[in-house]
């Protein structure tokens, strides 16, 4: 079977894919300002879900509720429920540190720690006690860098600064760092917006490969990118979820007129 055919089959089976995360009536307030209105959105396992929409529509806000990064913002309040494998992640019994180890994050701008490449990747496993020995840790670092497609480029300079890499390499380093703690879900907040087209292509390829092991939610401003990397797409507008659908359907025959207009470039 060719790769394209496999993908088609996967897409057809989409509705049978189990749900990894379920957002139900999610609303987010920044102080008195409401940023999200009762969003119901499901994230399917081993699927790339793209969140699109014009700037300020709440897609990044929604993404950040998935691993409670909004907790760090003063005056931010989340209502509704979000579950990860059926457990409410806003429940008081859930440890936010553990949650973030299960739901990793890659940010808009590459933000490696000002440490060596090795230390960047090893930090997560180290604080979570994932490696028992130095050899274990070395292995985790190598595997993570390989998964992020960076190993061959940096294997000879693991102990040089991570900030000395190019932008695209830095972003892949950040992906390796997120992968190193073996999360179940990886959230990506416009991971390619600071990268050139070649580095972008490299990262997109990588997202494609990561899909086999991880569930990925990606926020993007690029329609083409959403179409290329995702299987499911959700369209946000003014804090509302406009439409959530298979990516193919979304880009060819969306149910909602606003989606059609946005994808055609009529607003946004």
């Amino acid at each position, binding site marked *: 079977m060719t790769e394209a055919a496999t993908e088609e089959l996967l897409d057809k089976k989409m509705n049978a894919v189990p749900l990894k995360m379920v957002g139900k009536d999610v609303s987010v307030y920044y102080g008195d300002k409401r940023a999200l209105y009762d969003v119901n959105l499901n994230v399917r396992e081993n699927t790339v879900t793209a969140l699109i929409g014009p700037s300020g529509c709440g897609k990044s806000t929604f993404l950040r509720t998935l691993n409670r990064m909004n907790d760090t913002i003063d005056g931010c309040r989340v209502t509704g429920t979000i579950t990860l494998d059926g457990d409410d992640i806003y429940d008081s019994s859930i440890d936010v540190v553990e949650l973030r180890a299960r739901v990793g994050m890659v940010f808009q701008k590459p*933000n490696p720690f000002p440490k060596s490449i090795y230390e960047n990747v090893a930090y997560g496993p180290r*604080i979570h006690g994932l490696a028992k020995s130095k050899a274990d840790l070395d292995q985790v670092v190598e595997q993570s860098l390989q998964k992020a497609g960076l190993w061959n480029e940096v294997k000879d300079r693991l102990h040089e600064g991570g900030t000395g890499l190019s932008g695209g390499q830095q972003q892949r380093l950040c992906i390796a760092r997120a992968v190193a703690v073996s999360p179940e879900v990886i959230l990506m907040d416009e991971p390619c917006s600071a990268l050139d087209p070649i580095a972008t292509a490299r990262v997109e390829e990588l997202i494609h490969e990561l899909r086999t092991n991880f569930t990925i939610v990606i926020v993007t401003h690029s329609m083409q990118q959403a179409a290329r990397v995702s299987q499911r797409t959700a369209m946000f507008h003014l804090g509302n979820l406009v439409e959530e659908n298979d990516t193919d359907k979304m880009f060819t025959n969306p149910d909602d007129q606003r989606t059609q207009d946005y994808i055609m470039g009529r607003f946004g």
Partner: protein
Amino acid sequence: MTDIAQQASGQIIAKAPARRDIGIRRRYAAERRFRLYGVAAITFGLVFLFLLLWSVLSKGYTAFQQTELTLPITFSQEIIDPNNKRETDPQVLQTANYPVLVRNALAEKLGVASSNRAALRQVSGLFSDSARVELRDMVMSDPSIIGKTLPVTVLASANIDSAFKGQFDMTVDEASRKVSDQQVAWMDQLAKEGVLAKGFNTGLFVNGNSSRPEAAGLGVALIGSLYLMGIVLVLSLPIGVAASIYLEEFAPKNRLTDLIEVNINNLAAVPSIVYGLLGLAVFINFAGLPRSAPLVGGLVLTLMTLPTIIIATRAALRAVPPSIRAAALGLGASKMQTTFHHVLPLAMPGILTGTIIGLAHALGETAPLLLIGMVAFVANVPATPLDPSTALPVQIYMWANEAERAFVERTSGAIIVLLAFLVIMNLGAILLRRRFERRW
């Protein structure tokens, strides 16, 4: 005027083309003027810095040399212990008339008859009375030297020291001079014979305070300042950094923390003498700690330095990019792990710089120490921070009040020592910042 302008005036068009050159000359002139102001301001500052350094260095460098007399002194029993009672009465060696030993040795050297009392008095004016303590200590530690003749180095008197360094105007009438012509002649003779010479003034760094300028030193003040700095560092760095980290990283942003922030900024501007009064009231009157003690001084200076350190530390923490915090939190690091593994190391150069600047500020502080009694005359080196002591700036203040010519150079010398410490601390701050600076 440019071509465009002439064209514009010659043609009839609804709107003249934009004149981009209008005011360009004036804009450039303004910029040149501003640069000139800047250069003038810096020059002004540099001139005064140079004047300050010149004034201090030219007056003070001589303080690092001291005129000394090296001559064989006979520890004669007739003078030290005429009645040979030292075995039974320890007071004898304590109270013996040691300066006479030096006087006799000098008189012999200069050929002054022992019957010429007036001349002998002048001979006594050549050397410092500190010889009494010096010789007494020698004899007390080893009484067997009585009866022997040993080469001993004693300090020249302050007046001879000043005269030998050429600080007296010799054209002034002898009666209104501190040294007589006879003494000057002897001085020259002794210098020629190699008895009188200038040596490095170790006493300046070792001795305690003294009313005799030639014997006065910064020893007590240096130890006192060292205790102060140690106490300030040990207390203000952890307290200041802990307070800043809590306020910056953990505390909720609300009215209370706003109020605290405003108050910290205000405290940084409170005159230091107010901290002295506070220390007097709280540490000495209420807590009953001893007066003049470096412990109290250190506590007061800690209070004074804390706002500086807190402000610098908070600025350094705030300068760490939020993306680093987000990266660590996103990996599942706790708030504390994020702060201590990533934020604090990155803020470290700023924190250290702030701390050293705060310490340097505390090192030069005088006013609060005056109020808690560290302005005392202290001759003995303090063994613990609870013993009476002075500090470098206070010692400068005290010497500046003295009248003798020799204290002028000591005051300037002490200022040089203080400035040297400040320069070293600031250099340290710069080096630390360079060393730990990391780019992201």
